[in-house]
């Protein structure tokens, strides 16, 4: 069965610090990878996604993620975080194209200190 691991449960950073959130998945075949974000009091929304092609994908609000197939990883990065990035971040994977069921990680709570 597929699984997604997010090892950082709660990350606290100061504004302007660099961010990297880890995500590892278990399935060894073709995968589609996603990062979703949930801002306080809001619904889950897509941050970025990887289907194929360039393993470095760029998303909204200056976020990017790199797919490293050999490491089964899809880490999320941002060079300089802002207070408004405070949110819960979920990595998710699906093993087929399109709208198959997503398997989510347990999430990483990010707190940015002004």
């Amino acid at each position, binding site marked *: 069965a597929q699984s997604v691991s997010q090892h950082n449960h709660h990350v606290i950073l100061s504004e302007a610090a660099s961010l990297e959130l880890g995500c590892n998945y278990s399935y060894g075949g073709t995968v*589609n990878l996603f990062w979703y974000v949930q801002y306080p009091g*809001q*619904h889950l929304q897509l941050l970025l996604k990887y289907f194929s092609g360039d393993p470095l994908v760029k998303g909204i609000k200056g976020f990017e993620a790199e797919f490293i197939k050999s490491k089964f990883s899809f880490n999320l990065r941002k060079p300089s975080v802002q207070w408004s990035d405070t949110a819960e971040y979920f990595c998710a994977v699906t093993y087929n*194209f399109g*709208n*198959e069921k997503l398997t989510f*990680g347990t999430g990483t709570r990010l707190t940015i200190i002004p």
Partner: protein
Amino acid sequence: DAGVTQSPTHLIKTRGQQVTLRCSPKSGHDTVSWYQQALGQGPQFIFQYYEEEERQRGNFPDRFSGHQFPNYSSELNVNALLLGDSALYLCASSSGPSGRSNTGELFFGEGSRLTVL
């Protein structure tokens, strides 16, 4: 353009009762998926509806059932509620099931928070 809407937003039930949660998909979407998010966990896939049929199902017992209506809206029903069913129930919509959409993006509602006492 309305996004995904869910009702009710909060509800409290007692063990053994039944509950029905409702979801209206984003305009233009025809596929609805339901997820359960327990406290401190990521969302877990319950099932997906397309063309009024259950297309995929996650590892949830038969107490969890659903329905999709001709207008693409959907209901999630849970019978014989257990304490462990307390969670945030998320509805997500998309345009077509696997292979019919080139975005792979799900649009989520804000969820229905169910508390079972």
